[in-house]
């Protein structure tokens, strides 16, 4: 029974991890930028959901609706005004720039919200459903479903819309995309905006599950890193695969080796993947 329970836990958690990672993966894949501000975006999204529920009794489901455009605009502007200036610079410069941005956003959140942990508790609580001895918390289930819906939406956007196809084209081959007449600069901004929107929405969902504090941003960022590498860069299905693998490894690791070793195990796995299969589970060899 324990095995089944751990498996179910991992399945649900894996989808949440994918949701955390997908925007990060998109930005990395398309812009070739490691976006260190991603974790703080998620936390900001969580605060948005918390504030909306606390002060205006807006349920997180509706918060998703306005979080997405808000974060999209924020990300779009950030890319246009700042990131774009160094987009062709070496890896280190873009990385350091997002590091600086993260310092600012995180500090601003600590300043305004304080570092206290907050929690969005729905009333009445959603509880858990149990089948035989296996228990699944309803809020996680709903968050997972929403996460899947979001990833599905992104998938459709990338496949069906003109902008989406342009994004995919830029990801696969930047130079060819330019030749095809894609305005790469605006695609970069749109992709970064999308990444931010996905982070914001992930934040709204995480608010239901994890305590909210500016200090959790590094934990989210770390998960995004691992998921991306395990699953493969820039693809929706890759993020899902990576998330599930990570959750499984952590779950099994903490049961059989102890919870303290679960993190170590996931990072060892990360290094092994990088060395042996840098394209990830489902990715193709792409950017260096």
């Amino acid at each position: 029974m324990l095995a089944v329970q751990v498996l179910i836990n991992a399945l649900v958690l894996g989808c949440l991890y994918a949701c955390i990672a997908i925007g990060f993966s998109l930005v990395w894949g398309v812009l070739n930028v490691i976006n260190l501000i991603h974790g703080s975006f998620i936390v900001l999204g969580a605060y948005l959901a918390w504030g909306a529920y606390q002060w205006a009794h807006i349920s997180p489901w509706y918060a998703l609706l306005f979080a997405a455009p808000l974060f999209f605009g924020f990300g779009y502007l950030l890319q246009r005004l700042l990131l774009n200036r160094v987009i062709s610079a070496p890896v280190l410069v873009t990385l350091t720039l997002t590091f600086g941005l993260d310092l600012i956003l995180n500090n601003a959140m600590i300043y305004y919200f304080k570092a206290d942990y907050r929690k969005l508790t729905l009333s009445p609580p959603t509880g858990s459903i149990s089948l035989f001895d296996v228990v699944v918390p309803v809020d996680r289930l709903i968050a997972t479903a929403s996460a899947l819906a979001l990833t599905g939406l992104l998938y459709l956007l990338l496949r069906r819309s003109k902008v989406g196809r342009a994004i995919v084209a830029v990801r696969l081959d930047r130079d060819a995309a330019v030749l095809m007449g894609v305005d790469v600069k605006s695609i970069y901004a749109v992709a970064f905006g999308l990444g931010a929107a996905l982070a914001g929405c992930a934040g709204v969902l995480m608010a239901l599950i994890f305590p909210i504090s500016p200090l959790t941003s590094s934990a989210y960022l770390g998960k995004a890193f691992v998921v991306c590498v395990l699953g493969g860069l820039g693809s929706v299905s890759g993020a899902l695969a990576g998330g599930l693998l990570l959750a499984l490894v952590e779950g099994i690791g903490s049961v059989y080796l102890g919870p303290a070793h679960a993190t170590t195990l996931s990072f060892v796995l990360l290094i092994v993947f990088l060395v042996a299969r840098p394209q990830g589970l489902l990715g193709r060899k792409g950017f260096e």
Partner: protein
Amino acid sequence: MFHPRFGCVSASLLLALASFAVPSPASAEDVIRFGAPLPITGPLAPEAAAQQMGYNLWAEEANKAGGINVGGKKYKVEIVYGDYQSNTPRSVQITEQMITQDNVNFMFGPFGSGAAKAASTISEKYKVPTIAASASSSQVYDQNYKYLFGTFTPNDTLTTPLTGIIKAKAPDVKKVAILARNDLFPLAIAQEMEKSAKANGFEVVYFEKYAINTLDHSATLSQIKSLAPQWIFVTGYINDLLLIRKQMTDQQMKAPVVTMIAGPAYQTFIETAGQSAENISSASWWHPAEQYDGKDIFGKTSNFVKLFKAKYNSDPDYAQASAAASGALFQMAIEKAGSLDRDKVRDALASLDVMTFWGPVKFGSNGQINSLEPPVFQIQNAKPVVLYPDAIKQGEFKLGVN
């Protein structure tokens, strides 16, 4: 003629020099300066906020009364704060900075056992009396420093009475599961717990550490659930405990006894955890329900609670009270010594044997307080109810955490 490169050499050198040549404010005649390094940013930031509330309340009360009386002359209290970003090396650096640059007279230790221990080497070197307001682990005091004092009793004073109560009130409890954050204080207290559980004939079916920054505990909790312990004992900081408590309810984990240290002592924990905080037991070094008749500036415990509520509109927890008590103890020692001489104040602190709103205070030879009897309490009807010691007992232990 200048070589171009020398421009940057001299510029950076100047800046580096300027950084520690900043003139420190001349210390005014009638002010006593206390240095308080705090983790204002970084993972421990919430703790810093709590400590700052305690220090500020004391400074405000002391100044309202005209200041500290040193041999007939009144000195105002000034607290110099510094942020060490939850980073131990920084706390050491800032301690030295406060002593040598900001000319503080006395020091409060940085938050927690690890940083307090690291910083104490500095204040010991400079012979600056230091009160650590939040360090309990015996490893901090086993260096036998002369100038370091602490307001928390050793960790086993929390776990021993707790085990005693459970053994007496819940005879069916046999199996204990212990889950600890892999960090100095939580791990130390978990190890004390393991010891006292074994000594009292409990069976420890699970003892594991979780990494700092763990985001999800569901697999661990599922495993604990499958072992069916009657007593679940979890240590960590408030964020860990909130997360774990939430995930326990998610997994529909029930146990006759659930103990968490150190979250439930904080008002935020009770508010945030809501219904799920019910019947969780804990222990801490102080509780607002205590009734001591102090000789310090705050007087009765109830008076302290009243003042605190008036200023911050919430009940004080042990961390806030300890910070305020540390200030009050300094004040008593300085007034007793009748001097600002660091050695005299140190001796006065070492020889204190006095009642305060915090409880009876007497420091052992290693500097750690040994006169407190920390209360054991349980959250009942969204309020912490004291179960022990009997003198301030408010209610009976209740079984069953859902």
